[in-house]
């Protein structure tokens, strides 16, 4: 049996979880095995209706009085998944490509003494039963071909590599409660409280227009021009790691492998060379306009359009033109 961990909002599965289910379904089909789901949290029993059309035959709702409410307790989640996997003989357990998916599956790996492959792009079952998979490295700028072996194989899906659409044929999903044995130690790590962030401005991840600035901007004050351009276009400002390291922008503005991943309609990259670390963060952009003094810069190869010139001259002139057109 292939067991998929699903995150949900009061019975509505999250998109990345459906992608994880799609990866699990491919494995179930290849192995001629059943596809089942485990979920924690209030109203998980409502998942049956939504998941049947994704080919899920059974939904196991973790039921424990210490896990009621919106409590995230990663060891307790992992212990529950591991116990269920033992009970129903899961040969593979999948998770969504989320912080929680990777966090929980890593812990399941310690409990079942099983290997985990994260960020998988595709999986095939080899003749000897091993999984031959492709997974992301370097934030997706490199692909690893790997073999995953053992009686229990753990995998998480890469973001947006598998479809979240329903399966070709729907089934009727049974829904049942699973009561794990949990001890105090399993609840030692848990979310004590959630603090709301300040919701100022447009978040980088959701912005339709992002104006990015790199080392070529030259100083913190020079971001004013970029701020203005972003404002004129209804967008927000991002920065390269080099600019953040210079102290010109806070880390929250960083676009890249160790910063935000953006997916705007257009990304305007000003004074950014186009290092791998940065491009990983903006590859989700529909289109890319680069403004750079160096026609040989890597970003010029990766952009759709480029302006060869000094951003300190081009951006203010562009701002003037946009204001006039307004």
């Amino acid at each position, binding site marked *: 049996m292939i067991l998929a961990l699903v995150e949900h909002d009061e019975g509505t599965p999250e998109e990345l979880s459906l992608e994880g289910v799609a990866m699990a379904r491919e494995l179930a089909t290849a192995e001629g095995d059943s596809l089942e789901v485990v979920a924690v949290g209030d109203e998980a029993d409502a998942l049956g209706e939504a998941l049947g059309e994704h080919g899920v035959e059974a939904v196991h709702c973790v039921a424990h009085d210490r896990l009621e409410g919106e409590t*995230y307790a*990663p060891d307790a989640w992992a212990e529950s998944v591991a116990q269920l996997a033992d009970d129903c003989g899961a040969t593979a357990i999948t998770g969504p490509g989320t*912080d929680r998916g*990777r*966090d929980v599956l*890593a812990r399941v*790996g*310690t*409990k079942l003494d*099983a*290997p985990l492959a*994260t960020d998988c792009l595709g999986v095939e079952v080899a003749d000897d039963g091993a999984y031959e998979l492709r997974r992301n*490295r*370097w*934030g*997706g*700028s*490199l692909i*690893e*071909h790997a*073999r*995953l*072996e053992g009686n229990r194989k753990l995998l998480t899906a890469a973001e947006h590599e598998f479809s979240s659409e329903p399966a070709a044929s729907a089934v009727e999903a049974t829904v049942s409660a699973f009561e794990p044995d949990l001890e105090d130690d399993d609840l*030692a*790590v848990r*979310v*004590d*409280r*959630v603090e709301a*962030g300040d*919701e100022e401005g447009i978040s980088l991840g959701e912005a*339709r227009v992002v104006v990015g600035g790199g080392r070529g901007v030259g100083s913190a004050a020079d971001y004013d021009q970029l701020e203005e351009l972003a404002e004129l*276009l209804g967008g927000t400002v991002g920065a390269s790691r080099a600019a953040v390291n210079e*102290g010109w922008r806070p*880390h929250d503005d960083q676009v890249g*492998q*160790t*910063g935000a991943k953006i997916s705007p309609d*257009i990304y305007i990259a000003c004074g950014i*060379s186009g*290092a*791998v*670390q940065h491009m990983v963060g903006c590859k989700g952009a529909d*289109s*890319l*306009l680069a403004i750079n003094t160096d026609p040989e810069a*890597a970003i*010029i190869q*990766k952009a*759709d*359009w*480029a*302006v*060869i*010139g000094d951003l300190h001259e*081009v951006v203010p*002139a*562009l701002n003037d*033109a*946009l204001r006039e057109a307004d």
Partner: protein
Amino acid sequence: MRVLACLKRVPNTGARIVLTEDEQRIDASGLGFTMSPHEECAIEEAVAQVETHGGSAHLLTLGPSEADEQLRTGLAMQADEATLLETDGEEWSPRATADALADGIDRLADDEGFDLLLFGNESADAANYQVGVRVASELGYPCVTGIKDLEIEDGTAIARREVPGGEEVYELDLPAVVTVKEGLNEPRYASMRAKMQARQQDTESMEPRAETRAGGLEKVRLEAPETDDSPAEILGEGPEAVPEIVETLAEEEVV
């Protein structure tokens, strides 16, 4: 307080990743090596916590003898001691890495043990997202992952993790394992003098011990995915290109 930060030597990537002919690794001959960005923050946090609470900051890595270079970078950031679990440079699976690190931590702990163990949330290269969690499990310590804010108060770690719309707050008793993300702090620049001193310091090298090197997940080969490197359409040079930019933005329905 004894604090340990683990780090990993990884290639610099620059503008383009080039693989060696056998597709087993990145050709680092041009750009050299660094450490994963999250781990620079782990080292900074270790040193800063020791500056606040007293004690000592230790560094540990599993890697080839050349990883001594990254340990010295950490020593220049004012860490106190550094240990290398020396390999032949072949890649170890995440399970085997965790095995060897947990064993190494045991050996370094002596009678005192460590109060706080810091890891990067994931390494820059292999990004397996699990070594810290597995080490915590082997040592029997609680673990939180993906932390971007950390305070230590009276033997308790208060750790914050970003989630959509806010932050999850965890409170856990020390000793604990915390895996961190870049943005946790601003790693200090080592002064030239600190770098010179770090060169003189002793680092310890130990033989790593692990049950198996592959551990169920084995790399077969690496592949550099095809990228569309068709040159950009040049709209113009300097401010004279502004009308073309405006036209392009209008065509894209941005204005």
